[in-house]
């Protein structure tokens, strides 16, 4: 990614982004559905938008997904 696209991505905000508080509140449900292969981005588009934009929440989601998938194996 070059500087132009990185800056454009940084400046772009999604009005449907629910923010950290709501994403964290729903994260266990979202991760469980994602692990099960459900169309989670369609069901929770605001959470999906947030997880794409927020590094820390995205990191928590990846960790929780790894934990859920690890437990399933």
């Amino acid at each position, binding site marked *: 990614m070059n*500087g132009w696209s990185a800056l454009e991505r*940084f400046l772009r905000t999604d009005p449907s982004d629910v923010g950290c508080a709501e994403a964290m509140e729903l994260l266990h449900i979202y991760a469980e559905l994602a692990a099960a292969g459900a169309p989670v981005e369609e069901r929770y588009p605001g959470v999906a938008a947030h997880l794409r934009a927020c590094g820390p929440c995205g990191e928590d989601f990846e960790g929780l997904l790894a934990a859920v998938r690890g437990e399933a194996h």
Partner: protein
Amino acid sequence: MTEQIAAVAGPDVDSAEWLRVLAGTGPQREEGLARLHALLLRIARAEVARRGPRLRLTGPELDDLAYQAAADALIAITSKLRGESRFTTWAYKFVIFEVSTKIGRHFWRHPTVPFDAEVWERLPDRFGFDPAREAEWRDLVVALRRAVDEELTTRQRRVFVALVLNGVPLDALVIELASNRNAIYKTLFDARRKLRAALAANGYIGDDGWRR
């Protein structure tokens, strides 16, 4: 925008058993807490190991962080028992959050830069602009800097400087400002919106991208 929880079925057998044991009393609950702690510690260790390569943390520090995260998650879980997903998924969420908080706190043991230092020469590098092509982006970066100065509130500017200019992790800034992740994110979200609007008003960017 608020997203509601989809239809919630009753808990599965394992989750119902966790909820029953932890809501109880006596040796059975103690044994349940010990089992849950062991489970959380396993997840915390896996999570710090997953993030470890990107952190400046060594083996004993990572294990200490995992222990603290598991202990604090156990306290949070037992005070908020709910049944919207499998119990273990919900419980793992707490230990993942605790790992993030501990890593944020750890950042300040060895900070790379004061969170409020303003070295604006770093700005192009923060977005990965190629120094060899400075003639192409110089005006844009000057306009961005001007928008930070003229459009942002004091708090928005402070958060922008810490997170963007100085690369402070968001969870570390939360601790430094005695705030929470949601508030800091919202502050930066509003700042991003303002900066884009300022660059658009000055003809640098439109709906379909940059005006070069």
